[in-house]
């Protein structure tokens, strides 16, 4: 009897040990295979960085590359005492922005949410790789579930998001040093969501937009913009719509009219930075690093200054400089910020000198 009991408990123990080993190894394998986005394409690492933050922001930016490359929270803090964060990723679609906003508002209630409206032009999911860069970084919540459901392309499966190993299994033959180096930790790739570039590539011959068959924004895009508006109203957050000062993708006049009308109808502030280029002092021969698609640090600082003035004076956001906790946190962040400026500037200069030689 005793022996039988012993044999049974041994079996149970063996089963448990094997199960733990299998699950553990699968977990490790999954972590290994998931792209780390630490070098080259860093956009996929942006969304997850938010969770390491203290959730006490005055302003949260939501949107695509037109926010995370065109506005710098470090300057907003330094010059206006505004504590802000950018929740943006590459080609972030409007429903992804909505669900990111929904998730953000579960963590905190900022005074202002700034949404860049370029993604209004997309009415259906566009690209699996971009979906992944936005969605993989999100923590699991109802917001992520809904965002995944809204974003999936035809050949995507929800289960692939739950178990990313099913999606990234083919990377087994493409693993590199980064996959092992960043298995358990990741470096920061942004500065409160801002992706910094100090190099310059002047905007020359920016193409005009091709005529479209239909300039109306889609129903789905409007649906999520409505949801965003309603959510902000419900939470007592002021929603500001912006069109960042990127020259390309082309922003059509017909789109502008629709956005102005929407803002008017919903009593929202709408700022089109394309019309404020002069006021901001933007010079697209020096303030962009990719020929007008995105601003470089110099351009982002100019646009941010304008915005900082607006937020302080028009919206009435008070400076929080002097708050000990924030000062301590920002000191560290600013050190990293300036260190990165120095590093990139040096690299850029070396590149230029090399080019001249």
């Amino acid at each position, binding site marked *: 009897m005793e022996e039988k009991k012993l044999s049974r408990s041994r079996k149970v123990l063996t089963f448990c040990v*094997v199960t733990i080993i*299998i699950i553990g190894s699968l977990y490790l394998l999954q972590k290994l295979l998931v792209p780390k986005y630490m070098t080259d394409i860093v956009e996929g690492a942006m969304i997850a960085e938010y969770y390491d933050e203290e959730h006490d922001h005055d302003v949260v930016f939501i949107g695509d590359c037109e926010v995370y490359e065109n506005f710098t929270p470090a300057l907003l803090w330094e010059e206006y005492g505004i504590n802000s964060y950018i929740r943006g990723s590459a080609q972030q679609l409007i429903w992804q922005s909505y669900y990111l906003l929904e998730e953000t508002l579960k963590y905190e209630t900022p005074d202002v949410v700034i949404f860049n409206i370029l993604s209004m032009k997309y009415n259906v999911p566009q690209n699996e790789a971009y979906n992944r860069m936005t969605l993989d970084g999100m923590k699991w919540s109802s917001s992520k579930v809904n965002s995944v459901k809204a974003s999936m392309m035809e*050949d995507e499966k929800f289960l*692939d998001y739950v178990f990313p190993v*099913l*999606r990234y*299994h083919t990377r087994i*033959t493409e693993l590199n040093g980064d996959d092992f180096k960043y298995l358990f930790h990741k470096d920061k790739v942004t500065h409160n969501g801002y992706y910094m570039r100090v190099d310059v590539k002047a905007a020359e011959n920016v193409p005009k937009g091709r005529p479209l068959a239909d300039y109306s924004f889609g129903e789905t895009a409007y649906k999520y913009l409505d949801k965003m508006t309603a959510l902000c109203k419900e939470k007592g957050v002021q929603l500001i719509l912006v069109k960042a000062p990127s020259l390309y993708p082309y922003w059509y006049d017909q789109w502008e009219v629709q956005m102005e009308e929407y803002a008017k109808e919903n009593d929202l502030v709408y700022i089109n930075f394309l019309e404020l280029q002069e006021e901001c002092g933007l010079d697209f021969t020096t303030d962009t690093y990719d020929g007008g698609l995105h601003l470089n640090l110099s351009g982002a600082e100019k646009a941010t200054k304008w915005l900082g003035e607006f937020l302080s004076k028009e919206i009435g956001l008070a400076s929080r400089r002097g708050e000990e906790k924030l000062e301590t946190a920002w000191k560290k962040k600013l050190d990293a910020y300036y260190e990165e400026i120095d590093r990139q500037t040096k690299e850029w200069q070396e590149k230029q000198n090399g080019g001249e030689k």
Partner: protein
Amino acid sequence: MLFTSYEFLFFVLATCVLYYVIPKKWQWMLLLAASYVFYFLAGASYLPYIFVTTVSTYLIARKITSLQAVVDAYIKEHKKELSREERKEYKAKEKKKQWRLLLLCLFINIGILAVLKYTNFAIANVNSMLTTFGSTAKLDFVDFVLPMGISFYTFQSMGYLIDVYRGKYEAEKNPFRFALFVSFFPQLVQGPISRFDDLAKTLYEEHKFNSATVASGLQRILWGYFKKMVIADRMLVAVNTLIKGPEEYQGAFVFAGMLFYALELYADFTGGIDITIGIAETLGIKVTENFHRPYFSKNIKEYWNRWHMTMGSWFTDYIFYPISVCQPMLKLSKFSRKHFGEIIGKRIPVYLSSFVVWFTTGIWHGASWNFIVWGLGNFVVIMISQELEPLYRMFHKKFPKADKALWFKIFRVGRTILLMSSLRMFDCYRDVPLTFKMFGTMFTTWNWNVLWNGQLLELGLEVKDYIILFLGMMLVFTVSMLQRSGSVRGKIRTLAFPVRVIIWYGLFLVVLLFGAYGVGYDASQFIYNQF
């Protein structure tokens, strides 16, 4: 619902869990419900067809059995009064009634299959003939649904009916149990074509959860997925590229494509059957094996005894033998012997029956000429092989040791593989003239350097894919070799527990990591699903 989809895995898992949780007497009912849900999910419009087949076969089989019972009872009752001749006469008279019922049921079911599967083929041929004769008139094609697995469940049901008619066993009394025999979901998609007396008992009996049986079933499923997802679906990429570019890919490319397709088809079909048998095994149900290492066959006849065995035996039992012994054929045999001599006279009925079998085999695979030509190609090769038998005997008499020599075995196996692969090209290109043309280019376009100059890397597969394919095929080959001395799973069971875990978990990881699935791969149905 693809066998390789998450939905299918979830469906099987849920069915298995429920199967062992519910009272055992309900197990077969659950399987029936699951089978109909599976079929409904595949296409609600398919349901009426399987329903008609099930009901018509059940009712007519029941009627035949009751008529047979009446005959038996009458004969038993009047045994003393009736002479042997009278009994025979009475039996023959009553058998005719059963024969008419059998014909009616065959007419309904083969009719459904023929109309749904072959109408457009017939229309295409009529149109082609009209054009040949200068007519501009054309018949319109019809848009019929082709229910999933119709060829399989129709043949399975008709096999059952013929067996009942032959008095092999009595018709199943319970219509729902019979419905399960027709629709059992793991084998509905691509067979095997089971016999009622093989499957029924194990299908309806109560099964107690047995961890060893379930584990064994899961192992078989895993092995099936390995063949399907790691080998077949990866090979498919190159095969598709080669087939879709006949102008570009000729000569040695055709040779490569021919072998690639042979391997793909093997891994695809045997993998699918492994999954089917594995699922049944996890439920405690034993499904007939369909393959016996076919690529180890030394000749085509042997190959067909080892490939898709349930289909082969179906055609033998229900087409070849009935045709061979039917009255007209016996008369023809007599006539032939009288007029052409014993040697030729003996062959004519056999060849005629074989011709019908291979024609039917061809057209069963698909409603197009390429399948018919493929079937008849097999017939021709088998007949030639039979006619050359005396030559082989002479050879073996002269070289008695050759039969046991390894090189000769390899030669014969290689020859069979090449022959079968050549015939499969009809299946591959799906166009008879094109297949002949492409086959010809192997001898006219001399570009064998493409096999090693890197051009095979332009077919959608990278070096790593070829490495995975090579290692995968080596594993399949090793397992096949080990199978010669018994079940490989049985051998693994005798190993130490940690080794077993490493082997099966390792295989799982191989499927997980090297399987051709997910974004970037087209989810592909099993090749035999379309038949």
